[in-house]
């Protein structure tokens, strides 16, 4: 009998080596200090101020949305606090021609990409005017089916490639979304076609109640890109500079023919999964909550900007007041939307010729509605 060779090949060692390479990248630490100069994206003062403004604005939007929901004036809402850096710094690295395929929590990005706020509110309320995206706004609707946007992003990216457009696609899912088949298909297809796509996993630690540890045995979610053969990074998702830097780099790579990138942003959702009855105290401890709150993206970015003389309380209050005014105005506009009728739904069913059954029902409902 041939003697067994010791450790001729060690798949466990192989795995450990790959996993160990996925260290979390950070530029700005929790104290608002630059800890990685080489990775600092070198944003201008104006850009830094604008990104901070957007983050503060979005935190207010989150607070107001929660209270509007509690008053029964908003409908569906998935809280965003804790994810501002992950959401807004990645979107800020884009240009207007870039296309966003959001998940259901990614409303702030599409608002900053051009969806009027009153439409975002109408989408939340369940009114079709909310989903009637204005021409020239390069977004798809917030995806409800977890992960579906990933494979669709590969399609949009391939389309851009075929048309020779100088722009990219970005899509977002959560930690739970990485368990769906669509996730793997999306990164694999985009890799196979070498398409200009940026895939973001916002790892906010919980898929409703299910902790990240139950989703996969993989040490990081970013490493999943390795199997698809695409560049992959793990980044501090509460650090706006790091998120901006890796997204910008991924965008450049995509535009230069380097294909897709997978980015895992490590973050936390402070609130419940949605406002529809989820109770995080059933599955999280307040100790964990406060651990994460210490890493808050707004706190560290505020400190950083203050140290550069770019931000102060007065400025912040201005943004807060403006956000409140804009939200109020948008709600007022949303309130004025006409009541949806069955005939409206029948009318938007098909772009081409209306089938006979729909025509017949349209006549019946139109007659009823005019009574």
């Amino acid at each position, binding site marked *: 009998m041939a003697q067994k060779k010791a450790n001729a090949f060690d798949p466990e060692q192989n795995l450990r080596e790959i996993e160990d390479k996925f260290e979390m990248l950070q530029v700005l630490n929790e104290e608002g200090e630059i800890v990685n100069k080489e990775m600092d994206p070198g944003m201008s003062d104006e850009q830094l101020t604008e990104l901070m403004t957007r983050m503060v604005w979005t935190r207010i939007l989150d607070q107001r949305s929660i209270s509007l929901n509690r008053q029964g004036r908003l409908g569906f809402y998935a809280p965003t606090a804790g994810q501002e850096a992950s959401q807004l710094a990645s979107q800020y690295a884009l240009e207007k021609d870039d296309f966003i395929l959001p998940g259901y929590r990614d409303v702030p990005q599409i608002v900053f990409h051009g969806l009027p706020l009153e439409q975002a509110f109408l989408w939340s309320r369940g009114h079709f005017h909310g989903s009637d995206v204005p021409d020239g706004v390069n977004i798809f609707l917030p995806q409800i089916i977890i992960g579906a946007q990933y494979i669709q992003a590969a399609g949009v990216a391939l389309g851009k490639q075929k048309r020779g457009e100088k722009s990219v696609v970005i899509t977002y899912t959560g930690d739970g979304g990485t368990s769906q088949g669509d996730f793997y298909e999306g990164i694999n297809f985009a890799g196979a076609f070498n398409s200009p796509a940026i895939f973001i996993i916002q790892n906010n630690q919980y898929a409703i*109640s299910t902790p990240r540890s139950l989703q996969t045995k993989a040490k990081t979610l970013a490493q999943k890109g390795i199997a698809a053969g695409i560049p992959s990074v793990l980044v501090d998702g509460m650090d706006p500079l790091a998120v901006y830097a890796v997204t910008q780099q991924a965008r450049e790579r995509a535009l230069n023919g380097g294909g897709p990138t997978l980015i895992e942003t490590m973050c936390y959702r402070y609130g419940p999964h949605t406002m529809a009855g989820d109770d995080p105290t059933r599955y999280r401890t307040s100790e964990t909550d406060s651990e994460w709150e210490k890493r808050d993206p707004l706190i560290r970015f505020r400190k950083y900007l203050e140290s550069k003389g770019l931000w102060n309380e007065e400025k912040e209050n201005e943004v807060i007041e403006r956000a409140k005014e804009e939200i109020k105005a948008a709600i007022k506009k949303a309130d004025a939307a006409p009541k*949806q009728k069955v005939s409206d739904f029948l009318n938007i069913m098909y772009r081409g010729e209306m089938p006979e059954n729909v025509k017949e029902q349209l006549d019946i409902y139109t007659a009823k509605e005019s009574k």
Partner: protein
Amino acid sequence: MAQMTMIQAITDALRNELKNDENVLVFGEDVGVNGGVFRATEGLQKEFGEDRVFDTPLAESGIGGLAVGLSLQGFRPVPEIQFFGFVYEVMDSISGQLARMSFRSAGHFHAPVTIRSPFGGGVATPEMHADSLEGLMAQQPGLKVVIPSGPYDAKGLLISSIRDEDPVIFLEHMKLYRSFREEVPEEEYTIPLGKADVKKEGTDLSIITYGAMVRESLKAAEELEKEGHSVEVIDLRTVQPLDVETIISSVEKTNRAIVVQEAQRQAGVAANVVAEITERAILSLEAPVLRVAAPDTIYPYAQGENTWLPGAKDIVETAKKVLEF
């Protein structure tokens, strides 16, 4: 006896079967610690352990495939699909795999799997959550499709479904979960699959329906009785297989029928019921059999759903057309 909501009756049935058969496994997204997003599995992981009641990674297709594999290992899986609007992600496991287990293996393998899922509408969910897709399931040979209309039926039908040797799609209407309570025996009982329930007897018109439309039909019947019409209401309880015998004997008595479903009109369960009636009892009919159904659109946005959903008023209107024919 205890007063229970439908969701409590469902939890009770699951508890009963987890106790009754060690091969019963309950799993899905957030069914463990969280007890499910509607709390259908509340407390079950604590009582039976993570081995029997467990959270899966987030993937409906994964949950379906797992159920197929576990049934090959002799288990009796009771997976939950969080919302039936997500069923398309798991259609291959349901129609392509589970429904074919016995047939493909000449009866060697079988899949005693019960897929539970909240469905229907009227509770202002975000888009793609609510829908009535029972017709899609009923069209697939190899599946049984069960839809309880209240707490008592939910417990008896769920126990029967879990004990069934073949795959069952058990659809729980979201609006019925907590809308009313009923006397539900604490001990176990079964209700046979494929057997309809005559909720109310009458002689002038048969209303054949199921799910959340049973209560709407009873309301409509009350309205019609005030005007002197004697109305029979039949709750199908199982939309596949249909209890043709109960339907036909009712129609032979009343000579007039309408079929009520919350689902869209095109194709679907009501069309099938009408076909059975015309094939088997056309000579008993004094009027065409009409349907009450939702219009042929995608399930609408939350703010528009209440004008879209059929209700008692539509049932009365259609019933009168048939009664006055």
